[in-house]
Structure formats: C-alpha cells, structure tokens
C-alpha cells in the first residue's frame, strides 16, 4: 500500500505542483492518477520513487517512509514505465529487460531467464529479444518497456502516460495487456494519464486531480460516474457519463432462446433474420431469410455485431443488441450461443435497478 501524507511540492519559482495531497493507493489493482495538464499527476507519481522530492509531507510504501531509503535502491525495487518507452537504444531488447535484475545483483543467468520470462509475458518472442529497440514498432517498444519494469518481480509498478504515444488500436491492446498482467501478478500499478477514458477503463481506483495539484476525488470508476464529488469532476468525467456508467452496471437479463441454423443446413422458413452457428455452437453470422433459400452458404452470412458474454456489463449487452443486423444481441457462454437480448430488454433491466 502506498500512502501520501500531506504531500506538497513547491518549486523554487513559487509554482505549487502538488498541494497537500493525502491519499491511499490500495494494495494490488490499478490506481490511476488523472487530471488536466498542470494538475501535478506526474509529479505525484515521481515522488513515489524519489525522482522528485516533496517539499512537505511524506510518502510511505508498506508503512515505510520512502525518504528513508537510498534513491537508487528504492528505484530498483519499483518498476517504472515511461512515456515513449525510453528504451536504451544501444542494448538489445533482452539486455534492456535485464537492466534491473543486473542492478540488484542477480547473476547473468538468473537475470537472463527472468528477462526472457518477462519478455514472453508481454507477448514478445525470443527472436524479438535479440533485436535492438529501433527494429521494433512503437507498440512493441512499449511492451518491452513494460517487460523491463516487471523483470525483477517488483510489487509496485509506476507508469507515466505509458500509452499516449501509440495509436489507438495498439493502445487498446496494451491496456488489455497491462490489465491482464496486473491480475495475473497481483502487483500494485500506479498509472498516470490525462485521458479520462483510459482512467475509467483501466483503473480499479481513479484519483482525479485538479489544477494546482489538489485531489478532487478518489473513487472507483463506477462511483466517479455515478456520484462525481463536484462540478469539476463531473465536467472532467465528461458529458456522456450516464451512458459510460453502463460499463460499470451489471445486466440482470434472461437471454431469449434463438433459433439457429448450421452451415449447409436448409434455412428454416419464416421471416427476418436467423442466426448461423458452427459445429460447436459458436456464432458465425446472421442470415437474411428474404434473400436466402436452400442450404446456408458462407457467402450469405452477414456480419454479426459484437457479442456479449454472460456476466458482461449493460454497455456490452446494449452494444451487442444495437450492432446486430437483427437488433438481437448474441449472448455467448464459453463461446457457445445461449440466446439473444433486445435493446429494450437491456433498457428495461436498467429501469429496474
């Protein structure tokens, strides 16, 4: 657990970057510091590993004051992922990831195997481990940055705008990856971003900071959307928070049974759309009975729209319903179709809660 106690950072020119910040970052999970530029989020992050020294107050990790530890040693015990990855261009991916294990005194063989393990964890290959950073794409470089932060099994990993320099698709991949790794390893991640969507999508807890380095609200994403503490948080969270809140609302729904047809079988008579499934009951696409007759061929399938998995949020169910050509959202469990839901059903379930 990381605790900020009355932490203030004032620079020599009189600018106050962080003002009397007190908060607790819970053990495990992802805590996101988010806010507009100049809110002191990065400064706050960097005070955790003493890249920046506070003017007042103290920061404790597991009840130990970080100021009592030597900066270099403290930093070796905390993973750090920087914007633009900040890889060492003159070292191969493997050597980059071996950096901290070597610094804390592990021998070559142990550091190497720990690094290879971390490289695999972030989805890179042994072949890529031998390359130089410049030979990788931006997204792959950032993966190396994450692997480098994880190689020595730190309990705490700090991430400073780790995904802001990659394109949106890659960013989504990386976010999912960080989420998965955090769950898998049980580490505590503190992540800084200016992007409220990233904060809400990724954080278990979100600390919203306002200009001048003051804490506006620390809450779970759901709470933040439901009950913003004040106007600043409400406006920062954005105007469509009612809709986005759906992402944190469970859907209490009974999917209706759906008539399905396997590829090659004759289309059942009737009207409207019918759902085609594969051998294992996995959904393949919708068939339009107006244009189809006889056995169902692959070229007759219409794109399916998104799928909802049992237990997903109301947002996922609603999106499944709205994106299907039949307006019936396909619900799957373990990859098999168990039924469909309509948008009306989702909305009705929201009315009930």
């Amino acid at each position, binding site marked *: 657990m990381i605790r900020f106690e009355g932490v203030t950072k004032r620079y020599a020119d009189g600018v106050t970057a962080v003002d009397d910040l007190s908060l607790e970052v819970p053990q495990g999970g992802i805590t996101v510091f988010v806010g507009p530029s100049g809110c002191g989020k990065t400064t706050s992050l960097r005070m955790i*590993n003493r*890249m920046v020294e506070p003017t007042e107050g103290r920061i404790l990790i597991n009840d130990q004051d970080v100021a009592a530890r030597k900066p*270099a*040693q*403290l*930093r*070796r015990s905390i993973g*750090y992922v*920087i*914007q*633009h*990855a*900040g*890889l*060492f*261009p*003159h*070292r191969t991916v493997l050597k980059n990831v071996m*950096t*901290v294990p070597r*610094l*804390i005194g592990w021998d070559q063989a142990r550091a190497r195997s720990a690094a290879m393990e971390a490289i695999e964890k972030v989805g890179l290959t042994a072949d890529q481990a031998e*390359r*130089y950073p*410049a*030979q*990788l*794409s931006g997204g792959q470089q950032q993966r190396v*940055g994450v692997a*480098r932060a994880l190689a020595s099994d730190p309990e705490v990993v*700090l991430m400073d705008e780790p995904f802001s320099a990659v394109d949106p698709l890659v960013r989504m991949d990386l976010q999912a990856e960080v989420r998965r790794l955090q769950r898998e390893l049980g580490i505590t991640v503190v992540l800084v971003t200016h992007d409220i969507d990233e904060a809400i999508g990724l954080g278990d807890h979100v600390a919203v900071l306002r200009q001048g380095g003051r804490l506006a609200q620390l809450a779970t994403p759901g709470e933040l959307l439901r009950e913003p503490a004040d106007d600043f948080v409400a406006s920062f969270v954005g105007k469509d928070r009612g809709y986005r809140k759906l992402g944190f609302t469970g859907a209490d729904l009974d999917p209706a049974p759906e008539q399905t047809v396997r590829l090659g079988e004759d289309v059942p008579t009737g009207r409207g759309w019918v759902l085609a499934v594969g051998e294992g009951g996995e959904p393949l696409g919708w068939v339009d009975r107006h244009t189809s007759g006889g056995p169902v061929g692959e070229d007759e399938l219409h794109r399916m729209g998104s799928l909802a998995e049992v237990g997903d949020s109301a947002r996922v169910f609603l999106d499944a319903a709205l994106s299907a050509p039949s307006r019936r959202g396909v619900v799957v469990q373990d990859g098999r179709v168990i039924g469909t839901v309509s948008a009306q059903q989702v909305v009705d379930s929201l009315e009930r809660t």
Partner: protein
Amino acid sequence: MIGGVAWSTVGELVLRHLYLAGLPLLLGLLISLPLGWLATRYRWLAPPMIAGTGLLYTIPSLALFILLPLLLGTRVLDDANVLVAMTLYTIALLTRTVADGLGSVPGATRQAATAMGYGELRRTLVVDLPLAVPVITAGLRVAAVSNVSIVSVAALIGVSQLGQLFTEGFNRNDMGPILVGIGACVALALVLDAGIAALSRVLTPWLRAGAAR
C-alpha cells in the same frame, strides 16, 4: 629512396609523427570526457567551459611550442612540449564534441535509466557515453586530421617528424622531400581517420541493425 629521401627515414619520421599527433589525441580525449561531462551536468558551466577550451585552438602553434618550455620548465627540444601543445588543441576540439554527444542522449532514455536505479556516474558510463560515441568519434576524426597537420610545424623548433622534410626541402631548394612529406602526412591522416571511423562502427552495432520490423 623516394624523392631523395631514404625509405627508412620516411618510416622513422612517420612513426614520430604518429606518436606526436596520436598520443595527444588519446590524452586529449581522456581529459575532454570529464570536461564535457561537467559542461552537460552543470548548465551554467557550459558556456565558459566550451568557449574557454575553444579559445585554446586560436593560440598559434609556433607560439605555443616556444612558450611551453618556459611554463613547464622543459628543454626546448623536449617532445613533451609538442605533446602538451597537441593535447591542448585536442581538448579545444573535443570538449564541445563530448558535451554535444552527451547532450544528444534522448531525455526519455536518461530518465528511464535514473528510474531503473542507475546512479549518475554509472548511468553516464554505461548509457550516456555509449550513445554519445557517434558524435564523439566524429569530433575525434576532425581532431586527428588537425593534429597531423599542426604537428608538422614543430619542425621549426627542431622536433623531428614529417615536418622536417618540409624544412629540409626548403633549405635545399628541393621539391622532392616536400612532396614526400605532404604525401606521407595525407596518408597518415587518412589512415587515422579511417581507423577511428572503423572503431566507431565496431562500438555502435545498434546503428547498423536496420529498421526491419
């Protein structure tokens, strides 16, 4: 014999020339590294340090060769005078280069190194310095060629090296030794330049790894 000069004499003079121009190159580099580091580490120090060392280059070499024995208490014909003078010229060229090289390290890389837990000295040696190699060796090549050229002036104070062929040729009114001296100087400069370029390549394998993705 070539141009009226014995081959053995040419060989001897080339070695002397290499010693008087090459050793100061190494010494100058060793001194410029900490000076350039200081200039990047303490911003306020950079302008006076770089201007100050740069000014050394404007001192005429002949004046320096004559003045140094007075300052160092050495004999006029002592090689040390030439070695010290050439070292000063090397420092004049390399301090800025080293500062530029260390300054060329990307901020994100430097910060990442600090955040990983590198101390400042260690980071400078294993991160900043390797990354500064291309810039530093570029400056070193200029300094090498410059040294080969300037050191020949030392013939005027009687320190033997290829420059001696110029004074001899002039005194005997004979173009032969002069042409041999010029040829040998150019060859020596080219060899040093190519040597440093090759060294730079060996030290920077990551620059040639190609951008294959």
